[in-house]
């Protein structure tokens, strides 16, 4: 085994795939994701950032390669992200839900007030991805300006309103006729994780009464909701009533650990009190995560058991356990998301990153997991597919790179497994949060608004007007 050559990650080929996704419209295959364009945008920009060294490496002839996204284009793309801001806080998930500005105003002329129900819906998932994109697209010279234009106070207030009585979070807030405000979206651990992420990114450490203070959501209720969603076999489900799922396990661990993650110089696997003393059965959780490893056998190797059902294509069972202990069967390790399901690229990430967040990445072997991704899931044109032989898609291609980066793949930027961003970008979040808070502290709301407007203008033009410089701005 040792003399076999390990596969290598073809970085230029992956970049080529992502360049295609960046430059040309996505095929109509993605139509069902039309409501979640912000997520697709995150997959594209995050992957390009993971693949691009922060310090450009000179070519053999000494020239510096030009970045895939030039600074001017980064500013334009930031504007696109900012155009999804919702007047009530948060971001909309897609451009088709951004309305002409007058559409947001609903004045009752009798009382002279706005009904407060704005059109379109800010979406919790889109809001996290938009904040991450603003950081990923921030100016390398002034990363602390990443959150310029973000209405931190409104967004955090809106976030609190998405929390249900049981502590969980929904994805959207909508006024339904005869029903009042309705928190939409299922009971889904993803929204809990996203709420904890947005809170960590934006809230900061402000005491009550100080400028920029916003009432926190009920973190105790959120933690309690998550903790009570652990299942009898140690995993985590969307709620206490359901089947455990690797994506939800990642979200449960990530959310708990983000609730008390330090605001500066923090790492994904910081010793979180809420996580470590909160989870009722930690050995059970680790057992469940370790059980997601999946011995990938080539179809046809055991023809008797081969099932042509699509869901079973790489779920080949050995004739007996003794067969599995043969050396050649240890070559590829995939991960599944639920017991008795098949391997899928994204679960290499959800499980691998969940273990990394627990500081337990050493419990799984990296080499066979890496081989599985590079030899079975990687596609000729770059990117990763869902299952062996599948064409690549944005979601699997992004999370394939993410887990390789967590496993320390050479040539990829180091990744924070709790925030799914390069560590360098997490440092930028910390700086940008500080800058956002100090602006609010200095100016109060009115000053902040004025400064934000100037900030947006500067972002667009990338230059300070003479009068502002003269005024000492």
């Amino acid at each position, binding site marked *: 085994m040792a003399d076999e050559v390990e596969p290598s990650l073809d970085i230029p080929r992956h970049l080529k795939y992502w360049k295609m996704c960046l430059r040309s*419209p*996505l*095929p*109509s295959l*993605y*139509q069902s994701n*039309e*409501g979640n*364009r912000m997520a697709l*945008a995150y997959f*594209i*920009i995050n992957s390009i950032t993971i693949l691009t060294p922060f310090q450009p490496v000179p070519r053999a002839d000494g020239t510096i390669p030009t970045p895939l996204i030039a600074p001017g284009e980064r500013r334009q*793309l930031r504007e*696109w992200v900012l155009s999804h801001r919702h007047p009530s806080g948060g971001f909309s*998930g897609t*451009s*088709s*839900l951004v*309305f*002409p500005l007058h559409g947001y105003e609903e004045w009752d002329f009798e009382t002279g007030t706005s009904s407060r129900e704005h*059109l*379109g*819906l800010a*979406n919790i998932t889109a809001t996290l991805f938009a904040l991450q994109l603003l950081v990923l697209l921030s100016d390398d010279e002034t990363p602390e300006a990443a959150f310029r234009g973000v209405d931190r106070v409104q967004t955090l207030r809106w976030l609190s309103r998405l929390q249900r009585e049981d502590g969980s979070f929904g994805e*959207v807030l*909508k006024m*339904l*006729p*005869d*029903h009042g405000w309705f928190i*939409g*979206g*299922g*009971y889904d651990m993803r929204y809990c994780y996203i709420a904890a992420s947005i809170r960590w990114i934006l809230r900061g450490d402000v005491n009550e009464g100080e400028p920029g203070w916003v009432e926190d959501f009920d973190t105790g209720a959120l933690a309690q909701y998550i*903790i*009570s969603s652990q299942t*009898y*076999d140690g995993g985590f489900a*969307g709620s206490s*009533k*359901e*089947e455990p799922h690797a994506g939800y396990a990642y979200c449960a661990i990530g959310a708990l650990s983000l609730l008390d993650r330090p605001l500066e110089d923090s790492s994904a696997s910081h010793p979180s009190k809420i996580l470590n003393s909160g989870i*009722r*059965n930690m050995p059970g959780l*680790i057992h469940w995560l*370790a*059980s997601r*490893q999946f011995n990938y056998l080539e179809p046809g190797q055991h023809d008797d058991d081969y099932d042509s059902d699509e869901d079973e294509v790489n779920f080949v069972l050995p004739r007996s*356990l*003794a067969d*599995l*202990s043969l050396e050649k069967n240890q070559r590829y*390790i995939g991960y599944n998301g*639920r*017991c*008795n*399901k098949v391997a899928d690229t994204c679960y290499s990430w959800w499980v691998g990153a969940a273990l990394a967040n627990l500081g337990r990445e*050493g*419990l799984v072997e990296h080499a*066979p997991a890496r081989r599985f991704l590079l030899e079975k899931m990687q596609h000729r044109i770059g990117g990763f597919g869902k299952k062996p032989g599948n064409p690549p898609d944005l979601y699997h291609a992004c999370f394939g790179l993410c887990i390789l980066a967590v496993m320390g793949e050479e040539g990829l930027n180091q990744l924070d497994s709790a925030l799914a961003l390069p560590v360098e970008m997490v440092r930028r979040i910390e700086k940008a949060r500080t800058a956002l808070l100090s602006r609010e502290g200095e100016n109060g709301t009115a000053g902040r608004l004025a400064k934000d407007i100037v900030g947006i203008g500067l972002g667009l033009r990338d230059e300070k007007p003479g009068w502002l410089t003269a005024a000492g701005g």
Partner: protein
Amino acid sequence: MPPKSKAAPKPKGADSSKQPTLTPSTSNTTPAVPATVAARSQLRYDDSRPHDAARLKAGLTGLPRDEQAAWISARFARTPAARTRLPPKAQRELWRQVNEASLPVRALRGGTKGSSWGRDRNGLDVGGYSVERFDEREARRARLTCLEVASRGFRERRERERKGLRDPATGEAVFVSEGEVDAERVRRGEMADLRRELYGTVQGSFALDPEWDDVIPIPQDEPEAALAAIAYPADYDEAISYLRAVMLKKEYSQRCLRLTETIIEMNPAHYTVWLYRASNVFALKLPIADELEWLNQVAFANLKNYQIWHHRHLLVDNLYPALAEKPDELARFAAAERDFLTQILVQDTKNYHVWSYRSYLVGKLGVWGSPEELKSIEGLIDDDVRNNSAWSHRFFLVFSDPAHTTPGLVATEPDPAVPQDITSREVEYAKEKISLAPQNQSPWNYLKGVLVKGRQKLSSVEEFTGGFVKGLGNKDGSEDVQSTHALDLLAEIYAEKGDKEKADLCLRRLGEKWDRIRVGYWEWRRKCLEEA
């Protein structure tokens, strides 16, 4: 004005013989038949300027003398500014020559070189059409214009009706009948066909439907630099632009309901459309049962979609208060939902969203103890003993039933309220299923979960578990393990009994031989055991 003027230039047989390229016929009697409409125009142009084409080629001095004279006469005849400067005598001479030679006194302007006939829907130059084909096209264009005029008339009448204005001709109130609307629908269909045939333009179905005339669609306005734009079809784009318009108006109506249906058919994952649909259902106070019935069909067509299940959840939340007062109806509803879920799960046995909805429904309707529900789950496990979704649901059914459990406990916590007979029943059930497929982890997880919940010692299943492991640690090749999960549980049983050495042997053999892909995990367990 000349004394005798000819209304139109006549083609001259003798002259046209000098124009070899454009006139196929040189006969004196039959007029030339152009192959295309562009050629016909060229012919007409040349006929109105005798000898001009030849002059351009050879120069004036290169023409025979009589042709030179004719060209000059024609030129003067059609240029009054030059002509009037001639002395009267010369003018008379000019008209004489013009009459004798039947020269045209007017010329077609502009030439045909740069003129554009436009292109048809296939990108072909219309100038290349034959005369017959061109006439046919023109007839269609005329037909389209007539229809457009009629259609505008319809829209105006509609507008008057809406505003309560009177017909200016008759002074009567305007009333647009159903028949007129139907006729307009037919008319627009024909107009759309004509536009497609003539210009290749495709019109969306909403623009064609008179029902949507009062809505001005709001197309998306996207900056040049945008991320993740999707090349979706034009009809989706059109539908979304109408959705934006009605959302902006906050309109709730039957047509909005149909609009959401159209969009859901194209993209069932659009959560906003679902919420807007729910708003319509509630605002119009539509029967929730009808909406559920509609939803059933959508669910079958979109098995992997989960917005459908959120919508269903919301509908049932709203239906429940009325059901709760009538136990019979509640039971009927529970049975109907179970039947529906059974049908769905036959097609997709591990669909997470369906199972989530199912557990929600059990809680909402309070049917934990329903023998039918338990039987239905047993059927699914009988079909596929590896269906972990079904195992999870069974655990929820049995151990979240408020009739015999403590509310608020986490699933991994022991519950003193669970009766012994239920624990025993579930232990036996798990054991039976393990025997069918010992390497199936689902019932092993279930077994351990039941023992913990029911406060039973793990060692109560030591004998059963040990049955899957033979000669552990033997170096003579007699060691045989039928189930790594049994070996895993044995390690815990030995640890529970305080027999660290045996527990360690189980874990070591798992990492060394029987479950090598998890060697890191088993080694960690050994370390934990040592430290315990």
